[in-house]
């Protein structure tokens, strides 16, 4: 099962002050970093010998009222060691940009488009950043906490 307990020590040794915290809760290892270092740390994890070769998921959470407001969450998985890891970094509302990882993992292309569509975070270096789920002409970013649930923007004129 999960047999890569030494990853916390390896990361702490290599990136001493860049790791803000590394804790373990409910059998998951969660690592908190700053957003400027996220690309470097993910690249280190992807290359051998660490071998976290699969990006399972890439998402964002909106903590309205806290600073930083948005938090990016990355789940990576290593097939050889059968181990999952969660890496988080905060994004401030005044500076909504973060480095894209679409050059390392190809499914990050669509995942980042989804995060841009739903939250409005810009990804530097993304080849084609535009909306994925919502249609052209939709104003706003639906999954933010200040977008009301029932605010509709119909695309064609409705009868009633």
């Amino acid at each position, binding site marked *: 099962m999960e047999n890569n307990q030494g990853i916390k020590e390896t990361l702490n040794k290599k990136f001493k002050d860049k790791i803000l915290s590394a804790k373990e809760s409910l059998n998951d290892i969660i690592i908190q970093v700053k957003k400027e270092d996220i690309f470097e740390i993910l690249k280190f994890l992807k290359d051998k010998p660490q071998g976290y070769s699969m*990006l399972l998921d890439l998402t964002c959470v909106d903590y309205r009222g806290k600073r930083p407001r948005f938090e990016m*969450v990355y789940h990576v998985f290593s097939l050889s060691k059968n181990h999952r890891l969660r890496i988080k970094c905060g994004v401030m509302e005044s500076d909504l940009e973060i480095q894209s990882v679409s050059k390392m*993992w190809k499914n990050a292309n669509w995942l980042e488009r989804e995060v841009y569509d739903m939250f409005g975070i810009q990804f530097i270096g993304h080849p084609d950043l535009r909306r994925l789920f919502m249609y052209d002409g939709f104003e706003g970013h639906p999954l933010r906490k200040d977008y009301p649930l029932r605010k509709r923007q119909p695309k064609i004129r409705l009868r009633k």
Partner: protein
Amino acid sequence: MTHRIQKEAKKESLLINMGPSHPAMHGTIRIMLELDGEKVRNAELEVGYLHRGFEKTCENKTYFSLLPYTDRLNYVSPLINNVGYVMTIEKLMDIKVPDRAQYIRVIMSELSRISDHLTALAAMTMECGAFTVFLYYIKAREEIWNVIEKTTGARMTTSYIRIGGVRTDLHPDFKTDVKKAMKVTREVLKDVKGLLDKNKIWIDRTRDVAVVSPEMAVNYGFTGPCLRASGVKYDVRKAHPYLVYDQMDFIVPLGEKGDNYDRYMVRMKEMEQSLRIVEQCIEKMKESPPEVKGEIEPAEAIKMSRTKKPDQKIKLSPNLKGSEKDKYPGILTDSEGVKVPPKEDTYTNMEGLIKHFKFFMKGHGIRPPKGEVYFSVEGGSGELGYYIVSDGTDRPYRLHLRGPCFHIVSALEEMIKGHYIADVIPTFGSTNMIGGELDR
């Protein structure tokens, strides 16, 4: 608005649009192709035509009332989505599930998985022209849905799996019904094997088309039958066993090349393995406690309870069959505050009434501790994962679904480049795209 493909297209090529409403039986997706004669030079996909706002809706509902929304995600294997969601909450709150409920969950998951593969292959083969296979597979699916309906009450969107266990016990004739459904499924699988496995037309259409190498599959985040068809051995049931899968004896079939034919073969073989798991579960499961007939009518029991607690067993109405109080230790957990108390208690004594009331009241009910959790199960198309952030109240703060089809369909643009336009349909069918999971 101009699409990417219009900007990149050469002047002499033909642009074709396979629009959102199209004959393929999978769902609404728009495929734009740039053709050079019949060869596909470039492709672009547009998704989002079934985006129903699942994640935002879940932030406004309590943990219990958002269970029906999870059914409608991967609507061909609805019970597996239920299991994934419920087990995530159980991991967050550390709830133990009784043994019998775990076996029932495994049986229902495997029946859903069989129905998922049947529907996927039926649609894929029908679009290639093999209409008989579609009719045979839907016949087998009807038998399985019949079995599910007798226990859960609904054919498709059941909301049967609850936090802490399941809703009701299996119906009394379950063993005979499931054996009949398995017999019909095995016959149908044997017939279709004879029709398609060595069929020259089928092999010509699907062999060496849309080959996905193992490196490409892992880079794109493939999981499930599409990853196993490329030769990479990863199954969540074997890698991170949950429920009682570590006691089951089944193999994980692998493909060789990663083309359409391998994706078809892996699904056919997985269905046989699922049938084996269901047989083993039925043997290993302990018998349910014998049914005790009720003696007094509900109205009489309520009247009696004003003065003292009724000792005799109460007859319940027929649509509550299977969830009587003496079945509860087998099907639901002992932890308090996460389950609906039995109806006999609710209507005859004060504690039961208070528990029932508190469970459904706004602001009370299921309130997990603050924190976040990620849990995944093996869905019909791959690793189905739920990421839940809880802030201590009765509604989730953020619920995110890791849908397996999303990652597989994002590779479709690269998979169909260089092939003919007639290869688009079987390739698209073999990825088993389900609109509810892709667009949420």
